């Protein structure tokens, strides 16, 4: 069954319509709730349907639109890769549109106009859809800019705060440097291919040098958007300051659009990959993953922590992509496909659990007006549903079975373990080290999310606001429940997911994993059943059976009075009752990690001791403050800034102020140009 032009156009126009309708929302806020967000949600559902359709059916379909100049058509194309990312965007957009009506109420009585929020949210979603669909560099870049600019306005939405403006400017700047690199990368391909449609670019005859240049530019440009270290610094600044449902969209979806762009450029347009690119991506991915999780561990701002964790997960996705490129480059196509499948699977998973966590964080922040972990506590008993779904998000992101994060990391480990089929000794040593980094990262991520959930949702509330918090409205809870359910399903049914993703790798590279799903839906066997197998449904069944057994035992024992529970105060060592201040803090929780890895991070510790009046050696009170600054500022950006300053000073010398000098410059330029032209 073909998708008609009009269906595709409807999908693209629904978010635009929602954006335009939002302009009227300032006078009638109800429009937001009843029209703007539902339209966006329908747009999301259409994205899901069309994406799923093309993903399951395979094949591809081209469309032609001429929205602007009559001779400049926009080529759009829907293939399984695009369908997969369309599906991913659609799911999150749907969840967000369910969440946003309740969340945006907060802004109804604030200084910010609601219309701006609705307008740019709609444009943002349209931009992302278009990037995925674009089949020529022109449409791609226009859509990319729509996406970047509209998200800039969303980051700057609460612009009264100077820090938000600064974050937004940084984001805008880096987005454009990235866009420039992407444009140049496309330029290389278009130059050799003789045109800017992707079809011509695919056919471009590139030698290794030019292909590497195009690849490098693409890695820089898309890496900047995706948040690879060291060009990630905009991410932990911009994501926390945007409204929470926008943070969810940016973190869960926009970063994936960058991943999509990278895959499209490398696997599809350049096509003939070299193994050294894989090593570069692998190294950068490993550094990004470890760096991200270490900084996530040290944050006390809930959303900033999640933003750094996005950096970590992008690193994991790029580890998968790096493995895939390395294996493709060395001629092990099946293993390359396995790496690609793992990376795509992790992209999907990250979209699910990160949007879930950001929506949960948004709920907490909206209800309690606190974003600092050190001031939360005991939220689980006050908002049980949000707490339960947030816990599912935490389990998923910590890569624990039987949830979804585990499956994709397991697949990446399985890919890395097949290193024996590579002949180069260096590669054989590099790939296992990337696997160690991945293991360390996922273990630290578990620590990080135990800390996040434990400090925020367990224990006793640390402030008055938090003590009085109540559960959020229905839409906000349901949207989280929907995403949590997807996290579980993607974890329990990995075979079906891998089968769907197989279509992508087949259409991109011509290879697919035959063995992975050969043993039915119960068994996931990436290479063959001898090498490794995992049966998530049976694991889930076993867990359920165990719980059924415990429940049975509980109810059998209950009538005899043996299962009684006595409630009393917590044990306080025989001193006075416990106060919330006696609890372990988030900073204290991460102190051992900080001690061990402290040399990597730039930390500023302030210890202020107030001595007792009579006994100077004893402290009456001790204040400890920890400031965590991204070390990349010092290691990477300050040197670059210094270099730029020095270069500018050098260049400034030619500004003598004398007219004759300037005339001379013009003269030399003219001669040079004439020489170049002839």
């Amino acid at each position, binding site marked *: 069954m073909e998708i008609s032009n009009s269906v595709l156009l409807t999908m693209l126009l629904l978010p635009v319509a929602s954006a335009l309708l939002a302009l009227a929302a300032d006078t009638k806020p109800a429009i937001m709730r009843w029209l703007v967000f539902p339209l966006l949600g329908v747009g999301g559902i259409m994205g899901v349907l069309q994406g799923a359709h093309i993903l399951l059916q395979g094949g591809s379909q081209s469309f032609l639109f001429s929205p602007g100049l009559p001779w400049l058509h926009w080529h759009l194309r829907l293939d399984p890769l695009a369908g997969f990312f369309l599906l991913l965007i659609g799911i999150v957009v749907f969840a967000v549109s369910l969440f946003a009506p309740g969340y945006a109420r907060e802004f109804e009585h604030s200084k910010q106009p609601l219309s701006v929020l609705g307008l740019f949210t709609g444009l943002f979603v349209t931009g992302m859809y278009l990037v995925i669909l674009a089949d020529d560099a022109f449409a791609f870049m226009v859509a990319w800019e729509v996406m970047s600019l509209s998200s800039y306005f969303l980051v700057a939405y609460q612009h009264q705060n100077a820090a938000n403006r600064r974050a937004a400017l940084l984001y805008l700047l880096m987005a454009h440097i990235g866009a420039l690199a992407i444009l140049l990368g496309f330029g290389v391909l278009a130059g050799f291919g003789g045109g800017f449609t992707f079809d011509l670019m695919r056919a471009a005859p590139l030698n290794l040098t030019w292909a590497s240049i195009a690849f490098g530019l693409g890695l820089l440009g898309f890496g900047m958007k995706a948040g690879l270290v060291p060009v990630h610094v905009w991410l932990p600044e911009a994501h926390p300051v945007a409204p929470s449902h926008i943070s969810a969209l940016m973190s869960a979806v926009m970063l994936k659009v960058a991943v999509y762009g990278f895959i499209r450029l490398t696997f599809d347009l350049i096509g003939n990959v070299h193994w050294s690119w894989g090593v570069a991506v692998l190294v950068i991915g490993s550094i990004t993953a470890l760096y991200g999780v270490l900084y996530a561990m040290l944050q006390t701002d809930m959303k900033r922590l999640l933003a750094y964790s996005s950096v970590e997960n992008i690193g994991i996705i790029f580890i998968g992509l790096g493995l895939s490129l390395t294996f493709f480059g060395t001629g092990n196509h099946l293993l390359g496909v396995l790496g690609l499948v793992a990376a795509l699977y992790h992209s999907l998973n990250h979209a699910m659990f990160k949007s879930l966590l950001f929506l949960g964080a948004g709920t907490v922040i909206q209800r309690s007006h606190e974003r600092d972990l050190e001031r939360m506590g005991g939220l*689980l*008993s006050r908002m*049980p549903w949000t707490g339960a779904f947030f816990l599912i998000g935490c*389990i998923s992101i910590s890569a*624990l*079975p039987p949830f979804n994060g*585990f499956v994709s990391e*397991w697949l990446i480990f*399985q890919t890395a*373990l097949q*290193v*024996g089929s590579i002949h180069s*000794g260096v590669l*054989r*040593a590099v790939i*296992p*080290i990337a696997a*160690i980094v991945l*293991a*360390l990262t996922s*273990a630290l991520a*578990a*620590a990080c999310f*135990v*800390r996040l*959930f*434990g400090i925020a949702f*367990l*224990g006793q509330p640390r402030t008055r606001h938090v003590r009085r918090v109540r559960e959020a409205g229905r839409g906000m809870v349901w949207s989280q429940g929907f995403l949590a359910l997807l996290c579980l399903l993607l974890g329990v049914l990995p075979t079906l997911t891998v089968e769907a993703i197989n279509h992508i790798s087949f259409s991109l590279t011509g290879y697919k994993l035959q063995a992975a799903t050969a043993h039915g839906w119960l*068994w996931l066997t990436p290479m063959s*059943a*001898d*090498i*490794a*197998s*995992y*049966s998530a449904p049976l*694991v889930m069944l076993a867990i359920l059976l*165990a*719980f059924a057994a*415990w429940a049975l035992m509980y109810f059998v024992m209950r009538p005899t009075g043996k*299962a009684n*529970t*006595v*409630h*009393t*105060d*917590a*044990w*306080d060592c025989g001193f006075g009752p*416990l106060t*919330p201040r*006696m*609890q*372990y803090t988030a900073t*204290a*929780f*991460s102190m*051992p990690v900080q001690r*061990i890895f402290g040399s990597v991070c730039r930390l500023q510790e302030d210890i202020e001791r107030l001595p007792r009046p009579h006994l100077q050696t004893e402290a009456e009170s001790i204040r400890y403050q920890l400031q965590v600054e991204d070390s990349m500022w010092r290691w990477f950006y300050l040197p670059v800034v210094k270099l730029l300053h020095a270069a500018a000073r050098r260049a400034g010398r030619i500004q003598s102020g004398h007219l004759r000098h300037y005339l001379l410059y013009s003269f030399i330029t003219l001669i040079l140009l004439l020489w170049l032209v002839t």
Partner: protein
Amino acid sequence: MIDWLLALSQAMLFALLAPLFTAWVRRIKCWLQNRRSPALLQPYRDLRRLFSKHVVMAHNASIIFRLTPYIIAAATLLAAVAVPLIAVNLPTAAIADVIVMAGFFALARFFLALAGMDIGTAFGGMGSSREMTIAALAEPAMLMAIFTLAMVASSTNLSTVISHVLADGLVLRPSLLFAFLSLVLVGIAETGRIPVDNPATHLELTMIHEAMILEYSGRHLALIEWASQIKLMLYGVLIANIFFPWGIAETADALSLAIAFIAIVFKLMLLGIFLALGETVLAKMRLFRVPAFLVLALTLSVIGLLSHIILEIN
């Protein structure tokens, strides 16, 4: 069908024998330290007593606190299903490979650490923080050792790995030697034994595992204790059966199963003696020495992996 029954009874055997293994280690330790040892059945009596007692719970305990013991017990039992105790080539081994087994341990640890923070006492948070930090360093070391094995046998399936080592015969592979040493160190750290943690202390500022479960009582405590006994035995069986698999049953007939049972009991007794000896000779380390200990384990496993890559792949 008989295979599934055998697999199930193997898991039951794990659960039933685990307290006995703990008792054995305690007994050897007592002998070495000139103390009178409790009876070998004492852990079973403790469990029975705890199961029949009331649960005393803090007022602000959440659902996490109540669920955690069951989750820990379920996850540990699941991990036990994946590890061949007396027979290889059982169908359950295909459900979960060794990475999934590490995942089950991680799941149990995740909930245990959350439960430690649930009541809001300082001890609980302290224990959780330390446990997660140590795990963060121990897990890569463990996975690396496992990867070495997996690359030697080109499989992450434990049953296949063991069959491979058996088929290989008695050869000294440097990679396996290093992986063995690394896995021993990781096992000590993960099961909370001396010199990383002391299972015999309560209420010291140095404790880790005991700090997290301080608020537990009654059947909850029983389940957690039982799970940690299973975990100790699991690591023992893992080390014994992977590196010294001789005796394990490759076919499911009664004689080879009986031999396998006797062999594993003997191997565990021997391992228990070494564990008790180590715990008697060594003292507990300071917390911030533990990273060095685990980095040693990681280095050993990396050396094992590299020696496999450099020396053994032709």
